[in-house]
């Protein structure tokens, strides 16, 4: 029996997504740009998928641009916004706990002459709305922050960023990396002053290799790929139809977010309660974090060791964040945690596929691991 608790890394594609991808490879295989009937059918399917993604965000179809994933969408947003606005200012505000697909483009922006401010989190991984607001100045051209942190699950103060931009009258676009929030937390970009918003298919039971960038109607960004005019020339290239149609299907298959959140909250609470009785375990995710992510440090047992131990028992979790492949977490470091805590940090992340059994299997395997691995030291 396997217990997959690494859903912030990726989720299992849902039945609907797999069927849609299969259809794109067997029936609707035309090029959406072709003028014949097969091309037309593909273009209808493409637009239906776009509509389904747009509907989750409550935006219009024309505001969704498909990309090869969250990383590309983040790159497109950051470089596209900065290059379009750099004449009006050179300051960019972000946080120290962003995903590498934001932080590394930021480093590149610094090379291009931008002054990038990285707002630091508190000890719980929260970004203070006041500190963030103070970082926004009248010459800020881009504010980029994630909706939910992928390692500890903290929810970032998007509204404060928007309020600060309006208040300072900064010529800034607001970009939100919503990869961990999309389909989970209510997030209507048009209501919250968000200009650009990144989403990814494989975190909501779609396929890897597909994402999208919401670009608010009227928010102008410059492309950095050039080609045959697809995706309104912002991101040209023949559309990756299997992934895109699967993305649309996965969006349509999303359960009511509020109902799902209740189920996930119950699973999260179950694991939290179980962790509390284990000696030497410290929960790192604060209580007000997204229930989908739960980070904790397992005493003095190194994360890799514990991960392997759990894996051998069919329980799959992450150390830090999966992208970092075991490197020291920049998020936990920015939170000011001790080296021991960082080295032993594990992340559990839930999806609608999880059950109480998965939680219990994790807790018992973890208890066993703590007994045997700590003793062996």
């Amino acid at each position, binding site marked *: 029996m396997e217990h997959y608790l690494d859903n912030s890394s990726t989720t299992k594609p849902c039945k609907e997504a797999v069927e849609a991808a299969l259809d794109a490879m067997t029936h609707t295989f035309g090029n959406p740009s072709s003028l014949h009937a097969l091309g*037309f059918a593909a273009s209808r399917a493409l637009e239906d998928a776009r509509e389904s993604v747009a509907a989750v965000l409550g935006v*219009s179809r024309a505001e969704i641009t498909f990309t090869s994933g969250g990383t590309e969408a983040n790159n497109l947003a950051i470089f596209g916004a900065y290059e379009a606005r750099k004449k009006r200012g050179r300051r960019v505000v972000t946080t120290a706990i962003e995903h590498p697909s934001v932080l590394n483009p930021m480093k590149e922006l610094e090379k291009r002459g931008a002054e990038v401010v990285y707002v630091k989190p508190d000890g719980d991984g929260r970004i203070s709305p006041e500190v963030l607001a103070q970082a926004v100045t009248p010459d800020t051209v881009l504010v980029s922050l994630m909706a939910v942190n992928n390692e500890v699950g903290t929810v970032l103060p998007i*509204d404060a960023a928007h*309020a600060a931009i309006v208040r300072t009258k900064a010529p800034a676009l607001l970009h939100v990396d919503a990869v961990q929030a999309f389909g989970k937390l209510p997030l209507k970009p048009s209501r919250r*002053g968000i200009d650009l918003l990144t989403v990814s298919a494989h975190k909501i039971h779609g396929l890897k290799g597909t994402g999208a960038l919401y670009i608010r109607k009227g928010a102008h960004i410059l492309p950095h790929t050039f080609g045959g005019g697809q995706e309104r020339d912002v991101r040209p290239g023949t559309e990756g139809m299997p992934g895109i149609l699967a993305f649309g299907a996965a969006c349509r298959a999303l359960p009511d977010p509020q109902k799902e959140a209740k189920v996930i909250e119950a699973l999260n609470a179950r694991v939290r309660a179980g962790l509390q009785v284990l000696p030497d375990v410290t929960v790192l995710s604060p209580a007000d974090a997204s229930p989908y992510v739960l980070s904790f440090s397992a005493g003095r047992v190194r994360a890799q060791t514990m991960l392997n131990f759990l894996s051998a028992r069919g329980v799959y979790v992450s150390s830090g964040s999966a992208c970092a492949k075991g490197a020291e977490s920049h998020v936990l470091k920015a939170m000011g945690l001790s080296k021991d805590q960082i080295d032993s940090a594990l992340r559990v992340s839930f999806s609608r596929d999880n059950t109480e059994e998965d939680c219990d299997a994790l807790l018992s395997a973890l208890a066993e691991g703590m007994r045997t691995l700590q003793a062996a030291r």
Partner: protein
Amino acid sequence: MKEILLLKLGELVLKGLNRRVFEDTLLKNLRRRLSPLGRFDLRARQSTIVITPLSEDVDMDEAADRVGRVFGIATYSRAGVAKKNMESILETGKTYLAPVLEAARTFKVEAKRADKTFPLKSPQICEEMGGFLLEQFPHLSVDVHHPDVTVYVEVRDFGAYVHGNPVRGAGGIPVGTGGKAAVLISGGIDSPVAAWQMARRGLELTAVHFASPPYTSERAEQKVVDLLEQVGQWSGRIRMFTMPFAHIQEEIRDKCPEELFTLLMRRFMMRIAERVARREGCEALITGESLGQVASQTLQAICCTDAVVSMPVFRPLIGSDKADIVATARRIGTFEISIEPYEDCCTVFTPKHPRTHPHLQALEEAELALDCEALIDESFENARVRLIGGPAQGKEGSL
């Protein structure tokens, strides 16, 4: 916190004895537009309509968006509901308006006290709310002339509300109060704007589209469906008629002088549209013509096309510049759809040198070579109709 929508009526308040009819139609339109979102209580009081959601899970963002696209409303506000005492009103002001006030630098307060039994008078309400908000949001200052935000406190017989700056509504008068008209729609930038403008003057829309397969593709027709869906977000439901037109065009090409092609084609379109209009109970036609824009839109050409119809033809864009039309098209969301590059029926067989100053007599003589009635009947036999923006969205049928 409970939230409602307050709608201020536009020109409606100017109507005399007909006002009830206008108001009832507006309420009916609002109900129809909001019903997919859940249950609402709608009531009209003086020149305001109050919309209260009756279930918890109503998407108020979407409701506000929809209300913003209903004709007959000048402005609307989302308001927080307070109890009718000052403490509750202050608290509601602080929590409900926090996001707006956080983003503002200056503000002022205005109070409307319709309920004269409320112990505080309007200036006192303003004073208390102003002082309280200054305490709660220390970054704010008061500016009574050009505030970023005006905080409105409304104490009415049936409750107290707090809201910020009202949002501009769609204006105009309610769809349906002006009767029905049929719009000729091709897929260009102008006709959707013309349709939208006339719906804004209270007309219910029927659409007539001419399709010329194999010269035009399914995509061209789909583009018109997309355009009407967009217009329908403002006008409500639209019945769309797709009229086969290729055979008529081939006949004109084969049997009539080339330079008259466009005008002869326009005359057929008008005849067919008028017949659709009469069947559907429409009393006028709508076109997107703008004087002098193309050869078929000169004064003389318009005289020649008008000669074949006996009902009024509304051309709301006749005196508009292209740039103004484009600006409206952008506002109503049809521009991006209109510029998709598919051949439509108007660009098939375009003559090299179309006649710009035609003589009616020459056109009538040219038409003698054609069996006009039979050609029009044939188009009707193969016509298709679909309902756009209704519950049976996109369902197709024959006439």
